[in-house]
């Protein structure tokens, strides 16, 4: 796995990715790509980005040895990458910081974003408050209901939260509305996409900004163990925390990379978001990637207890990594994810987001096949305060 170098100059990850968008957006996407390619090697831009990550976001986030979970399973040593300790409570701010700096360079006055769990919306509202830009966040009505605290946080931060009532009223529909807003206001507005999805160059830009997770993890695990981990586990909805964690390890063939999707009520229930497990390639929201669709090519209405994973598509780079078999993808049900919440909370005193709890819950499925001299890193992409009402409602 040497010379992994994607996307190509056409914005493709193998056959995936691309720019399947209305013509109106092409000039903005091209402008975004060309300014980003300049900025990413501009020492001043990099310095601004790193300073904000350190002094505002609180990076580097710790890599915590999970002693009691390790004892509980008596398999591999388990470490947790603590993105839950980022400012605003999830990895989403890593990307929002980078993109707000780009928006400033582009001279845009207005920022729009979509959000599912509300974490990306909060991160975007946060950087807009800090940089004094107008902020509109699209959020499905179902998600507004189940992630109330984050709605209040966005409003407190001065953002306008626009409810989306079309389709399944979740992340997919919020993204459609954000894209339509961008089509209508592209000249003064920057769209901060929250995951490694959408048209090129977004999957690349978001990945690059999130890669700080994996870069830090590499250094931290070397310091702690003087070797690379054997396994890395991360949850996958659109897939930004997972790509951020995996990307710096892709060429390390001995590190097994595991993406965990949401199986909702079960992969046979018809109510799940296991896109890479059960989907097939298609074109959706600007990209060619794995999607969940019906026999007529209509996008499926999907389900997960976790609003952040409740999405019928996935980042195109994950589609490529699946086909290459470099990352293995599995899925975890709502019920299993809730058990993951309890496990991490009771044994380590860490309340994970329902999204991250899917990665935690996957330990149950494979950790007994590992030995004590192996190392597993689990990405805790966010904290679970936002999910308290859902978790309480689902207490047995």
């Amino acid at each position, binding site marked *: 796995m040497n010379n992994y170098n994607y996307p190509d100059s056409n914005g493709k990850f193998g056959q995936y990715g691309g720019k399947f968008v209305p*013509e109106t957006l092409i000039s903005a996407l091209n402008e975004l790509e060309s300014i980003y390619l300049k900025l990413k090697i501009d020492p001043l831009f990099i310095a601004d980005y790193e300073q904000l990550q350190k002094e505002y976001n609180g990076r580097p986030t710790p890599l915590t040895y999970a002693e009691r979970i390790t004892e509980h399973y008596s398999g591999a040593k388990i470490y947790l990458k603590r993105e839950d300790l980022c400012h605003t409570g999830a990895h989403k701010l890593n990307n929002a910081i980078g993109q707000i700096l780009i928006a400033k360079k582009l001279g845009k006055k207005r920022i729009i974003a979509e959000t599912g769990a509300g974490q990306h919306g909060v991160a975007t509202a946060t950087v807009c408050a800090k940089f004094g830009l107008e902020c509109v966040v699209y959020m499905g009505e179902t998600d507004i209901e189940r992630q109330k605290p984050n709605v209040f946080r966005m409003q407190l931060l001065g953002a306008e939260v626009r409810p989306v009532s079309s389709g399944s009223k979740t992340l997919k529909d919020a993204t459609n509305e954000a894209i339509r807003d961008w089509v209508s206001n592209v000249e003064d507005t920057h769209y901060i996409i929250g995951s490694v999805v959408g048209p090129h160059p977004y999957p690349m830009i978001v990945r690059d900004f999130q890669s700080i997770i994996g870069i830090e993890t590499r250094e931290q695990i070397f310091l702690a163990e003087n070797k690379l981990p054997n396994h890395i586990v991360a949850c996958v909805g659109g897939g930004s925390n997972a790509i951020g964690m995996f990307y710096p390890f892709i060429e390390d063939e001995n590190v097994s990379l595991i993406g965990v999707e949401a199986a909702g009520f079960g992969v046979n229930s018809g109510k799940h978001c296991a896109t890479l497990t059960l989907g097939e390639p298609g074109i959706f929201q600007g990209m060619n990637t794995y999607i969940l669709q019906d026999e*007529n*090519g209509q996008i499926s209405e999907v389900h997960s207890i976790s609003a952040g994973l409740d999405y019928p598509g996935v980042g195109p780079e994950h589609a490529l990594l699946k086909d290459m078999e470099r990352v293995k993808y599995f899925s975890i049900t709502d019920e299993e994810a809730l058990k993951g919440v309890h496990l991490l909370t009771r044994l380590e005193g860490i309340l994970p987001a329902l999204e991250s709890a899917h990665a935690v819950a996957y330990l149950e499925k494979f950790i007994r096949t590992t030995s004590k001299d192996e190392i597993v890193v689990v990405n805790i992409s966010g904290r679970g305060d936002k999910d308290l009402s859902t978790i309480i409602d689902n207490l047995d």
Partner: protein
Amino acid sequence: MSYISEYIDQLNKKNRKALSIFLTAGFPEKNNFIDFTKNVLDAGADMIELGIPFSDPLADGPVIQTSSKIALDNGVNLKDVFAFSEAIIAYSNKPIILMGYANPIRKYGIKNFFNDAINSGVKGLIVPDVPLEEYDSFFSNSELQKNLKQKHKLKLDVILLTTPTSSDERIQEIDTKSDGFVYCVSVVGTTGIKNNFSIRTQNNLRRTYSLLKKNKMMIGFGISKPEDVINFSPYCDGVIVGSRIIKSLLDGDKPEDTLKIISGLSAACESSYTY
């Protein structure tokens, strides 16, 4: 020359701008859709842009989104769209153009889609989420690509769109690649009725129209009134009206009132040469 561009040319030679009416296939009802479309043609539409319903229509505003949702609830799929097309074409020689998002077409199979579209007599195709950049990859891997290059074999025109954000160079490239006509999107935005157009819209139409060398130009998005047709007629060869008609249907207007809107637009297409 393509069937569509020849057809528009014939109209223009008779001092008429072409009037294309957008209808969502199988909306508001699946059963009488064919009869309704025949009435639309009789009311003065020169061509029909038939929308293939999709669950996630990114380029569309609320009106067409709603019609698309209703059509899907009516159980409309691509087989139905081809059947509608065939029946409508049997009634009239006016061209039918399909407008559909990439995914349902891809799922159907590009080659199957082209075969079935051509066999049902469809003359053109608009895929709003396949811009220039994706044209080759989307339409590749089949005999189609070869056929597309050998124009004499091509019976289905792939029509590309320009927008106010397209650069001059891009518009020229789009003109080169597009067949049938170039679809000039009047505004920066999604589909929907626009009450007022800015001077910028007119400047852009003038710019785009003057850049085209190969194709006829049809203007769409926002157009709803005879005045719009008259105002834009110096800078186009025809107009496309969608949301105004769909809205009338959604509002539950009497059929004759919906058809009256079309005959009003048609009259404007006729008289616009005299302005």
